[in-house]
């Protein structure tokens, strides 16, 4: 698949520069991959958790991505696609393969609301928030996989629209349009 690279730097250009140095160091010595691992492990894990909904599977797939990344790092060029997009492209392929094999729906049985609640908010608000989050999760489980993929890349992985475009091989405007439509549809479905 060919990608048109119209690179737009993110808000913090120094981050890309620092990351390029980390990538170069890891290419020279794989043990130096660790800072990149620490930087991305939570984002990759959350991405998979959103896709598969189970902690153990998400952890397995996360490990798989980093093993593939370690093995493929020599083929990555710093001057090409940003590292985040390269890494999530691996994750995207792993997730797609997994989904094709399993054809399962997602359930978020393991998501705890505990981390999400602010103890300073009154109990009634907490209850209403919990209800809304439960409703939203229910709607998300029925969402089309391609739409869920975009939400996972934007919200769980924290990728910019430009990076998402590079991961899935679509234009920035197409990604934005699809995400905007998905959000509007979700909004309409919320009680």
């Amino acid at each position: 698949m060919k990608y048109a690279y119209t690179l737009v730097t993110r808000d913090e250009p120094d981050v890309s520069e620092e990351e390029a140095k980390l990538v170069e160091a890891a290419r020279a010595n794989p043990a130096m991959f660790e800072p990149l691992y620490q930087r991305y492990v939570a984002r990759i894990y959350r991405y998979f958790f959103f896709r598969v909904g189970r902690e153990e599977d998400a952890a397995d797939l996360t490990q798989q991505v980093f093993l593939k990344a370690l093995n493929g790092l020599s083929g990555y060029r710093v001057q090409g696609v940003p590292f985040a997009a390269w890494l999530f492209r691996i994750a995207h392929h792993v997730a797609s393969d997994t989904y094709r094999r399993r054809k399962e729906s997602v359930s978020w049985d393991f998501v705890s609301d505990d981390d999400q609640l602010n103890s300073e908010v009154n109990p009634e608000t907490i209850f209403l928030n919990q209800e809304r989050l439960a409703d939203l999760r229910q709607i998300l489980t029925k969402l089309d996989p391609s739409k869920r993929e975009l939400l996972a890349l934007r919200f769980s992985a924290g990728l910019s629209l430009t990076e998402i475009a590079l991961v899935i091989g679509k234009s920035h405007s197409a990604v934005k349009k699809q995400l905007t439509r998905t959000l509007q549809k979700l909004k309409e479905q919320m009680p």
Partner: protein
Amino acid sequence: MKEKQTLQETYNDLLNTWEDSELVQLVEELDTICTAPQPPASLHWAAINNQSVNWTSAPHRHVPVLLWAISSLRRQPMWRKAILVPSVLFLILATSAFAIFFPFLSNLLNFEPSTHKHRNDFTLINQSETIAGTTITLKAEAYADANQIVIGYTISSTKTDVRFGLISFTTRQGIALNQGVSVGTIIPNVGAFTFASFLDASSITGSPRMIALRLSAVTMQGGERTTTSRRGTSPKTLGTVVFNFSVPFHPGKVLTPNLHVMSSGKLATVEKVIVSPSATRMTIQGLGISQSSSLEGGLIAQVQLPGGTGKYDYMMAEFLPDGSVSFLYPYDWSKNPGIWTLTVQTKGHTWTFQFTVPA
């Protein structure tokens, strides 16, 4: 939930307006749901680092019966099955003394059934190196022939918080050896790493008397992720410890039958057969099957030996750049001369080859 300003900064490229309160609330809730999950304690760099040893350049593999039996205990994705062996063996070793590590290598080496038949041919290695003031010891048994280099090894340190990762095997000249399968275990709180590696030796040409090998391991100290802390601490890298050693090379029999068989209009050729004590490797051209399609449609390549009624399936199939497929059988068939029968099946095709293996 995030403060509104932080939320706006995070999703500024997504929303054209922040006036739609329902949409803003939805974004806020999606952010809450998506950023809440935290990686479990089992996910940490050391685990990735160590597992990368097992899976570097790993081709498509068929998992032996032992692993299937273990994996059936608990549903696991395919790629983790070989890693399950270390997990199970760890349970045995965790309660045992350091002294049993070396005898334990025999069990790991017997992962491939061919090994026990020629254990007397293995070379013993016992070396120590010092890195950053820490003594690292390698105890190993190694064997090399035309199919595989088999190394069972324990790397240990006198310091219990020293760990090893990114272990690689190269020739003394630095040429990387393709790792086939590695099985073993990592012993936390003891500072030992016990593995058996079955390396692809098919790229070795000629009949050298000895093979000069180098084992390199990145050595780290400290840094643990605990179940109570999600962040943990990073290990300090002490450097890369390097062990050089040589093992005798056993050439084996290399046949080039160039045997052609047609099946439903598709011509397949047995190009090369390497028979040696560590394994038998057969390279077939013309099957017209890719790695991904073999996973979907099935790929069978069974061998029947002279005078035998049983059929042996391959353990690993490697899809080579020239389109051929190399099948590895982890059995010692070096003393089975006569007419061998190989039956290969893909979706819609069956080829049966017969060729003579000399004494």
